[in-house]
């Protein structure tokens, strides 16, 4: 058996027995639906635009959060990276904030912003700030000291030093942190939607389950998995671009 046949052997066997079991009535369709029906639900969701609309809502919140996280993470990371003292000083505060799972802030964020994009985006931002902050701090610390000396010799002010020397020097490392953050962003956004926020893919899954449209629920899950695979593939592509 060739490699690609082996790859699809198990999923194919599962899907086939699922479909047959549904036909013969061995399984409860209210819980499990059946592959053919899920496929139809998926195609319907894609063609009538509901999947794309909810996907956009989720991506929007993820991007909103990522943008905030990038700005905050890089700025604070530069400060903490430039001065060892400031890092030591703020360590207990940073470490204790970082220990709180971002999702636990969902109730608080709801209280502050109400339902909608901002409350979700802020939680994404909280989760994504840490990897960016940590990689930026490490990156700034590892800047070639001679670059800083050059900036001093050129009598740059601190703003110029940050924009002309530090930011370009740390860019590639910050991207590593950003890569981790992108992975977090989608997951956190979907989680907030499942938990509280009535918008996006997470809410779509939740509502499908509550209204007992299990075929739609499974179709959403397949779509989410495909989306995750696509995001990972994009990130890998970006990595290769950077390495090249």
């Amino acid at each position, binding site marked *: 058996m060739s490699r690609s046949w082996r*790859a699809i052997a198990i999923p194919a066997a599962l899907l086939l027995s699922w479909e047959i079991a549904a036909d013969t009535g061995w399984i409860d369709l209210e819980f499990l639906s059946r592959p053919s029906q899920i496929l139809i639900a998926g195609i319907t969701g894609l063609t009538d635009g509901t999947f794309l609309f909810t996907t956009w809502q989720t991506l929007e919140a993820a991007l909103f959060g990522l943008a905030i996280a990038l700005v905050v993470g890089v700025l604070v990371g530069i400060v903490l990276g430039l001065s060892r003292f400031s890092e030591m000083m703020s360590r207990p505060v940073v*470490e204790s904030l970082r220990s*709180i799972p971002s*999702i*636990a802030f969902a109730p608080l964020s709801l*209280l502050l912003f109400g339902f909608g994009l901002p409350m979700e985006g802020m939680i994404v931002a909280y989760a994504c700030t840490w990897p960016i902050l940590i990689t930026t701090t490490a990156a700034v610390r590892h800047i070639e000291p001679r670059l800083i000396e050059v900036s001093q010799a050129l009598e740059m002010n601190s703003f110029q030093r940050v924009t002309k020397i530090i930011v370009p020097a740390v860019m590639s490392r910050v991207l590593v942190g950003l890569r981790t953050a992108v992975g977090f962003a989608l997951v956190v956004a979907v989680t907030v939607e*499942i*938990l509280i926020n009535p918008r996006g893919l997470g809410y779509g899954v939740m509502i499908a389950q509550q209204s007992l449209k*299990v075929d739609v629920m499974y179709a959403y*899950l397949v779509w989410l998995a495909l989306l995750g695979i696509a995001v990972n593939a994009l990130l890998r592509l970006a990595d290769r671009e950077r390495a090249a």
Partner: protein
Amino acid sequence: MRPALYNTLAAAAFTLLVLILWQFVVEVGLVNRLFLATPSQAFSAIAERALSGTLWSAVLETAQRMAAGWVVAVLFALLLGTAIGNSENAHQFLSPTLEFFRPLPASAVIPVAVLFFGLTATMSTFVIAFGSLWPVLLATIYGYVKVPRELREVASTLEMGKLRYIATVAFPSASIDIMAGLRISLALALILTVVTEMQASLPGLGYEIFMAQRTFRSADLYAGLITLGAFGYLVSHLLLLAERRLLWWKSP
């Protein structure tokens, strides 16, 4: 003054400054008290609940829930990872299927789990296990794949059987990577514990934070967040300590 002591003092001073600032912002009414309790209120809420014992019961519930899901995840991941990492057949049959499920946000399986198990502890165990499986699985496979070639050669010279090779050579060699995976997955398990508690009204810290918000008890909300942070910090450090113990032969 010694620099270490100086740094500690500075860190303490900064932490205190943040707390005072927080207290001040609420006291003068810059933000609505409905949203933001003062740190003194939050800490006295913690103290009160610690004395009455409700704090410990919530922490215990969360710890048990997290441990149940995590242990299931680790067992599954070790079994699957050992199979995939040591057998090309298992790798070719299983990996593609697993790769499909891996990018799925763990929280997205909550609706499915609720459908099958209802709002029960089984549901939370399933979701936590599903979500925290992946880091250990990947780390295990990676650990086996990068067993040094010399070790493999020694094993084949000694004509070790596959199981013996795994137990005496490959697993100890892979354990360093596995440990790193365990730490990441424990953090994930705690997050998913909180999520499932909030979603399914299961007792624990997550549920208490959720209820504090619902009933506008902001002191309890912050008390819950602080407790959760302390708990997460403690758990990850305990695991780090255990790791150093278990891998004593590896440390310099």
